[in-house]
């Protein structure tokens, strides 16, 4: 199609790079300016572009866009002479999308709710430490002076002299264990044993219900932090 015997050698390879957006602006501008003045390179650029388009078209025929993971959706098609949206917008078929990082962050309202929950949890813990225990009929009795929250898993201690993971530590916050590792029934029973639900206030019930993530449970053990969060929320 093109006369390959006569090409501008110094520009030829850059024509392809220009099509691929791989030229830095100064060089891209130079190539562009050269193409404007050199008919041979102009024809060469067009031919290179078209052959590329055909290759992509070949792939498009074999694999229409709807089957490809796309990170962006083209705007709906608007045909002239029709009202906007008269032609049904293409059905959006998302196979995979890159989720913006902000979409993955915890929504602000959830953070606020967690802060409130943690603050109330602090109050709950303090209250439970003071009120007499009323074990449920079917629930095993628990020590009156301690709060038998579900065991939390503490990160492995780096201190070789520290306690073994399963060893009880006096006057220490309950050791964390993954929530998933605690059977739901046992977890629920443990929660119920520590919080007499029949007489629990709505706030306390809410707190119990929110203690279902490892993050929530881990933070419970740091009461000072909870109090700080509560104070910040109040302010």
């Amino acid at each position: 199609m093109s006369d390959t015997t006569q090409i501008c050698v110094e520009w030829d390879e850059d024509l392809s790079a220009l099509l691929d957006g791989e030229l830095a602006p100064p060089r891209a501008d130079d190539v562009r300016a050269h193409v404007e003045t050199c008919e041979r390179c102009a024809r060469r650029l067009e031919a290179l572009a078209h052959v590329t388009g055909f290759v992509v078209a070949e792939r498009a025929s074999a694999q229409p866009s709807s089957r490809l993971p796309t990170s962006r959706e083209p705007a709906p098609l608007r045909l002239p002479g029709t009202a906007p949206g008269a032609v049904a917008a293409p059905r959006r078929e998302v196979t995979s999308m890159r989720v913006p990082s902000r979409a993955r962050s915890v929504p602000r309202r959830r953070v606020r709710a967690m802060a409130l929950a943690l603050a109330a949890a602090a109050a709950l813990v303090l209250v439970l430490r003071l009120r007499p225990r009323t074990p449920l009929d079917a629930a095993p009795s628990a020590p009156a002076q301690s709060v038998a929250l579900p065991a939390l898993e503490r990160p492995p201690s780096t201190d070789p002299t520290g306690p073994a993971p399963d060893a009880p530590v006096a006057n220490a916050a309950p050791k964390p264990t993954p929530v998933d590792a605690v059977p739901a029934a046992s977890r629920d029973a443990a929660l119920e044993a520590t919080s007499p639900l029949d007489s629990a206030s709505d706030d306390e019930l809410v707190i119990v219900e929110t203690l279902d993530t490892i993050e929530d449970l881990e933070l419970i053990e740091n009461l000072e932090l909870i109090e700080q969060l509560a104070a910040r929320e109040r302010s």
Partner: protein
Amino acid sequence: MQVADEPARASATGDLDEDARLMQAVRGGDDHAFAELHRRHAARLLRHLEHMVRDLAVAEELLQDAFLRVHRARDRWTPQARVTTWLYTIATNLALNELRRPRRRRPHQSSDAADDFGPPIALDSRAPRVDDVTHARRVGRWLQDALSTLPERQRDALLLAAVDGLSYTEVAARLGTTEKSVKALVHRARVALMERMPAPEATEEGSER
């Protein structure tokens, strides 16, 4: 040169038939078929355009313009021409116009702002015209074979860069080579295909001119 008429290509995949079926419906005035055609090919074509013009907003305008031009020229389409080749020819011409446009000029304005689409773009007398369905028909026949004859590294580099939209840096990492080598491989692949590509002929019987 005469090109004997032949029935619509017996396709190895159902998608070629689907595009032809949709285009037939578009010729019959079915706008929903055209919307389906858009849905099938817009995303990839957008990526191709953006790869060329390096500006998403402009690429989107070119995309719309390309589809609108196809719609305008729908009566010229014949079942022997691959729809995608035709579509990409139009889109590439539009992108080339944009690529060669000095920065000081006005940005591309899509054609959907008015009923008048303006004259077809003819960048060069030897380049396929925007609505050259005949050329699209001819191209479709040789491309598969031409690609298979490319040296493997050239083919891989071209497909990764042009079809998958990877940067030269990414292609170099994939192929275990340098960016400079990738630039050369991609260019050589294009030149090899270009030299084998049938030229658009204006003298064919029944050609769309």
